[in-house]
């Protein structure tokens, strides 16, 4: 169930260049049932910026009613969010959308988690849950450059982890897809979140695998009413059929929507 709650900032710190880790406390954590969902945050009390900001959930702690997000402070809204201090209040709408299906990976099987940049965060809670279930997890995490890398050690604690940077300043040089083929990684299920070209490449490379992709799109309401984040389906690429990224997604099965 979606809740609207004023959550309290427990911590907010810059963990990489312009990358913030924000932890909030609130009752709505009890509604967070799967990894890969997102929340819609009001970053200011004023009318500028006007709209909420959709931010994915990186870690859920239901025992303590805490959840963590990792975001890049890039535009006006996320910069304001980066300035939130411990004890500040943030208006949160959520949890929203459908996350990654953990049940699709069987205990004892291998899941490959591929993240690109600010698409990496939701994979963390996913990895925790898969690991807990007895699924072998492999992470391939792509970043632009060394300064943008975060959570390398946290992911490494859960399973084999490959860091890839476009400029080669940390880990392998190139793109996530290069590493997957170079390392000859074998897996049954693929979960991914990141830039659209990356998702497209992965979907095309593994048509025979069980693939789940988390999409990103500009949103208005985040609850399905405004029709801003609509995408087409692969079955009906030119017709009237559509899926809303906010409520039907953001996670879709590979082959479902046109990306």
């Amino acid at each position, binding site marked *: *169930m*979606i809740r*609207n709650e004023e959550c309290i900032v427990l911590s907010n710190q810059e963990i990489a260049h312009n990358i913030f880790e924000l932890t909030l406390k609130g009752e709505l954590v009890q509604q967070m049932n799967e990894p890969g969902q997102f929340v819609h945050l*009001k970053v200011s009390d004023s*009318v*500028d*910026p*006007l*709209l*909420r900001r959709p931010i994915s959930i990186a870690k859920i702690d239901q025992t303590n009613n805490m959840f963590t997000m990792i975001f890049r402070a890039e535009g006006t809204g996320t910069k304001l969010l980066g300035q939130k201090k411990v004890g500040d209040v943030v208006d949160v*709408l959520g949890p929203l959308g459908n996350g990654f299906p953990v049940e699709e990976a069987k205990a004892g099987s291998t899941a490959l988690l591929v993240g690109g940049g600010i698409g990496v965060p939701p994979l963390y809670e996913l990895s925790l849950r898969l690991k807990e279930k007895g699924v072998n997890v492999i992470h391939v995490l792509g970043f632009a450059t060394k300064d943008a890398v975060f959570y390398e050690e946290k992911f490494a604690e859960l399973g084999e982890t490959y860091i890839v940077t476009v400029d080669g300043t940390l880990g392998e040089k190139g793109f996530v897809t290069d590493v997957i083929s170079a390392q000859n990684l074998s897996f049954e299920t693929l979960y991914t979140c990141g830039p659209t070209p990356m998702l497209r490449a992965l979907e095309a490379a593994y048509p025979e695998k069980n693939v789940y992709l988390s999409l990103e*799109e*500009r*949103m*208005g*309401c*985040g*609850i*399905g*009413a*405004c*029709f*801003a*984040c*609509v*995408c*087409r389906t692969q079955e009906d690429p030119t*017709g*009237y059929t*559509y899926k809303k990224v906010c*409520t039907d997604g953001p996670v879709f099965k590979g082959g479902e929507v046109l990306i």
Partner: protein
Amino acid sequence: MSQLAVNLPGLQLKNPIMPASGCFGFGREYSQFYDLSTLGSIMIKATTVEPRFGNPTPRVAETTAGMLNAIGLQNPGLKKVINEELAWLDQFDVPIIANVAGSLEEDYIEVAREISKVSNVHALELNISCPNVKTGGIAFGTIPEVAKELTKKVKEVSSVPVYVKLSPNVSNIVEMAKAVEAGGADGLTMINTLIGMRLDLKTGKPVLANNTGGLSGPAIKPVAIRMIYEVSQHVNIPIIGMGGVQSAEDVIEFFYAGASAVAVGTANFVDPLVCPKIIEQLPVLLNELGFDHISECTGRSWKKNEKLAYHRA
């Protein structure tokens, strides 16, 4: 609640607050947050004869105190709107205002004829002002004579009163309002969005796939207030005002300008509970301001005798 009850052609409203068309879908999403019967009315998403997919994404772009949208009238088409959406809305005690759109005159006529027969549709809102579709829409909303003719034809087939939604993207809004009044409009709704544009800092290209979009939100409120102020002094039909409404204070300002009811648009995206919150705050604000009934506020900005309250329910 009688302090808020308003009677308009076709509409006996328990309060003058309603979500604006395109900002509320067909209500399903918001029914997760509150009982839709709380609302005075609901202006449902624009309906066309055939289903429409709408424009490519990105469809929205934020601007200072506002947003641009270019959704492109995405909707499931007349048949589905009647059989699925309006049928679903029938469980609520709330009169519906159906927003009617199209490309050709015949499209408007067909949608108006059919949708006005549905029992919970109490009025039509003729959408001659959507800035985001290539044909129809705004073309009908910028030439007074064309708007008048279309209004007349829609009135002939409609089983319920017809409100015409005016575009602010005209040089003379009063002329447009008078033209549709002469065409037989029972009321006006105003304003639709203002055409705007935003460019990306890195690429230098428009952010919206449609290049231009309709500007809404608090940024446009002064334009709406000015236009309602001008139009309400020159027509004898009621106005449902809209454009950047976020609070009970905003609602009162629209009434002062000359509105008899108010629609809330973009604010629904920011706060899904904004409409019930406004409805709850209105009586408190009216008492503070010393009004017995909200209709006493209509046209206060230009009325000579403020005691007149001819929209009183």
